[in-house]
């Protein structure tokens, strides 16, 4: 019954999205105002959310008469992972995707008040159009509620690597980000239709982009940390095609965010902002396609189905093509904004847009290059970390330089006076770079430069607060400072850990003492233990670097359904870094141990969190300003 109710809700929501599309673009709608389409959007979003709730219920109760549950769940799984299993498969995660699309539209309908009405109505219509296509895909090619007759006796379980708290957090967060960008896309479409690309549009779009961007930043950061501690290799970014697919919308959204500030303050960069808004969500759709179609081989990919791939490709081609066509036809009408000089905040932000777009382009090209080469010549080649690190790294450094400069410049024209304040940070950065050149003899020029730039950026990001009354500085300025400080933090973490990580690989006997970096580690014992749906061999390690003795218990785990081996790393986090330990195979009477000492590695994710918090503060700051203007305390 639950499944049927959910399916019925989905059909209803699909019909409503068609209505929403019609209401958005039908001529003569302006007479009735925006109330009807708002109501439809809210209802559609609500019904989709209801359908999703039904799917969660079906998973939580392990209803084995639903095919999806039988394929992906198991009655012995802990409840948290049963629920998280709802989106741990293609159909369920697609429903989550469509749900976020629906509630984003509903939220846009409820909360957006400051936008010109015709633009607003067209935007809601565009949102309905997006929803319609994906509803059709869901209902006809990825039905999550399909029944299994007769019901299965037991589920086929879920990939044990996904049975992790990170799973409960990572995909929904990311989807709120990717699919939240649909609002920016729809608003851009609406604005192109009515020709009103102005300050008002920017202010209407900004909170949505900020919100989606915060979730994306958190989702990517969390995903990176999850891969780091779960996969047992100590790596945190692999330039895997699916990771790249998640990074590209983020890059576009970051550029869009900064572009929106220019549009809101100065009404400049109109065409570029609209284009970025369209690209951001287009990248989300491209990512969805890449992950589910089998076009790219990846450690991350979902179950592959080329038929679904074709369907998604057609949807993508249609939506992105229509948007780009609209842009090509209408962007000529967009008037240029007011002028600005080479030394001005606008120019710095243009530079920022440029560099972020180049990184986006490079990641896109690098990810698809093997495909193009094979299609054209039949030759197979690979593009991985050596390419991306070498190319993205230097551009990121240039970006960091802009981050120090931009916030210190005035709009329109600046004498550059305040840039003199950068002398001290620059000298600090140079000093740090030179120290590393001498202290770390081996290769790693990029990392050393990165650390130098980070050391310069730490104080430079605080400079906008200099010579200001701190109590009267807007929250949005603090938000910017925090986010930029977060960038410095993350880059510092990446650089230091890359330059100074020590690794020890050894087959040790119980009782032996091994060392890694400054740590002395005694391999005490290894014994079998069992969990709810797994058994493991757990090693006990005692580690010290002259002070207190810490205990670490890495495991080699065996799951029963489906039979899989995984390693559970044991990580010790200290103020100066992380000790990462993994136990592997038995070799005779010895056990394979992999130990890493990674100084400052946690700064990477701390930086990501700071960036996200900065974004959240900016959102809060603008909302606060809005409430104060409206007289709410």
């Amino acid at each position, binding site marked *: 019954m639950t499944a049927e109710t959910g399916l019925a809700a989905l059909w209803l929501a699909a019909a409503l999205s068609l209505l929403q599309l019609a209401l958005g673009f039908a001529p003569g709608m302006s007479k009735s105002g925006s109330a009807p389409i708002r109501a439809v959007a809210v209802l559609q979003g609500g019904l989709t959310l209801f359908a999703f709730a039904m799917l969660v219920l079906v998973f939580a109760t392990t209803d084995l008469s639903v095919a999806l549950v039988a394929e992906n769940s198991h009655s012995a799984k802990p409840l948290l992972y049963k629920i998280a299993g709802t989106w741990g498969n293609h159909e369920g995660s697609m429903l989550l995707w469509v749900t976020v699309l629906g509630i984003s539209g509903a939220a846009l309908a409820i909360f957006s008040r400051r936008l010109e009405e015709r633009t607003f109505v067209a935007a809601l219509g565009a949102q309905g159009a997006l929803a319609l296509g994906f509803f059709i895909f869901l209902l006809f090619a990825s039905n999550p509620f399909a029944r299994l007759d007769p019901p299965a006796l037991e589920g086929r379980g879920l990939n044990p690597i996904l049975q992790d708290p990170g799973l409960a957090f990572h995909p929904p967060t990311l989807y709120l980000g990717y699919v939240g960008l649909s609002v920016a896309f729809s608003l851009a479409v609406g604005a192109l239709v009515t020709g009103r690309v102005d300050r008002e549009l920017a202010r209407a779009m900004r909170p949505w982009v900020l919100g989606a961007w915060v979730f994306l930043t958190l989702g990517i950061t969390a995903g990176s940390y999850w891969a780091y501690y779960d996969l047992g290799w100590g790596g945190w970014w692999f330039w895997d095609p699916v990771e790249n697919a998640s990074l590209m919308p983020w890059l576009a959204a970051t550029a869009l965010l900064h572009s929106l500030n220019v549009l809101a303050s100065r009404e400049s960069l109109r065409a570029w902002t609209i284009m970025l808004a369209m690209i951001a969500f287009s990248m989300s759709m491209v990512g969805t396609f890449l992950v589910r179609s089998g076009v790219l081989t990846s450690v991350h990919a979902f179950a592959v189905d080329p038929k679904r791939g074709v369907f998604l490709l057609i949807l993508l*081609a249609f939506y992105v093509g229509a948007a780009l066509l609209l842009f*090509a036809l209408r962007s*000529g009408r967009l008037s240029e904004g007011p002028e600005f000089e080479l030394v001005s905040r606008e120019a710095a932000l243009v530079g920022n847009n440029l560099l972020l777009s180049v990184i986006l382009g490079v990641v896109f090209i690098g990810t698809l290059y093997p495909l193009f080469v094979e299609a054209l010549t039949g030759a197979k080649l690979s593009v991985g970390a050596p390419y991306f690190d070498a190319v993205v790294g230097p551009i990121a450094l240039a970006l960091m330089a802009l981050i120090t400069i931009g916030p210190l410049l005035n709009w329109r024209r600046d004498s550059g006076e305040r840039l003199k304040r950068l002398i001290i940070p620059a000298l600090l950065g140079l000093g740090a770079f030179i120290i590393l050149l001498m202290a770390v003899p081996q290769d790693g020029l990029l990392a050393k430069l990165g650390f130098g730039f980070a050391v310069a950026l730490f104080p430079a990001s605080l400079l906008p607060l200099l010579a200001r009354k701190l109590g009267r500085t807007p929250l949005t300025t603090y938000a910017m400072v925090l986010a930029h400080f977060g960038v410095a933090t993350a880059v510092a973490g990446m650089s230091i850990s890359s330059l100074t990580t020590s690794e020890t690989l050894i087959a040790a006997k119980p009782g032996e003492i091994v060392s890694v970096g400054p740590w002395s580690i005694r391999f005490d014992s290894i014994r079998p233990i069992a969990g709810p749906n797994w058994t493991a061999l757990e090693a006990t390690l005692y580690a010290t670097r002259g002070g207190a003795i810490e205990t670490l218990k890495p495991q080699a785990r065996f799951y029963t359904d489906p039979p899989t081996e995984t390693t559970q790393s044991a990580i010790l986090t200290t103020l100066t870094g992380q000790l990462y330990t993994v136990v592997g195979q038995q070799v005779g009477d010895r056990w394979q141990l992999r130990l890493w000492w990674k100084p400052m590695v946690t700064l990477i994710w701390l930086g990501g969190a700071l960036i996200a918090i900065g974004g959240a503060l900016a959102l809060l700051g603008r909302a606060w300003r809005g409430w104060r203007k409206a007289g709410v305390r």
Partner: protein
Amino acid sequence: MTGWLRFTPIVLLVLIVAAMLWRLANPPDTTVHSQMIGKRIPQFVLAAAVPGVQGLSSTQLADGKPKLVHFFASWCVPCIGEAPVLDELKKQGLTVEGIAIRDRPDELAQFLARNGDPFDRIGSDPESKTQLAFGSSGVPETFVVDGRGVIRLQHIGAIEAEEIPAIKAAAEQAR
């Protein structure tokens, strides 16, 4: 924005969609093909894998007659089903040399006793070094090597009975 520039994104989209459609129609092939076809075999000297059967070295593969070099192992499940096919190829006059990957003499002897021994010689490759030198990536794989020691064909996976004529023909051409 200038005229034609506004349409470049659409052109790019068309190219990308075309590439994706191509890929959907031609799914990626995950088998690893050796790039050593047409090149001389690597030099190697492998000890005997099983007592009573000679080991294999690369000089023995360039004696004027085409041969089959068969990578296999006693722990390789598809290799069991392939034994009759290799027997048939031997009956048809082809010399089959074996290279056993990561194998123990006792387990290999058991495997040969159970499934038959069509091999003239069997070299032991305990750390896959010769396998890597051939550009092979798994077991079972069979290479057709001509009389001058040049690799002419790689067959990945177990040879099916229907494929025997094709292998025979490749060996004929390799004279």
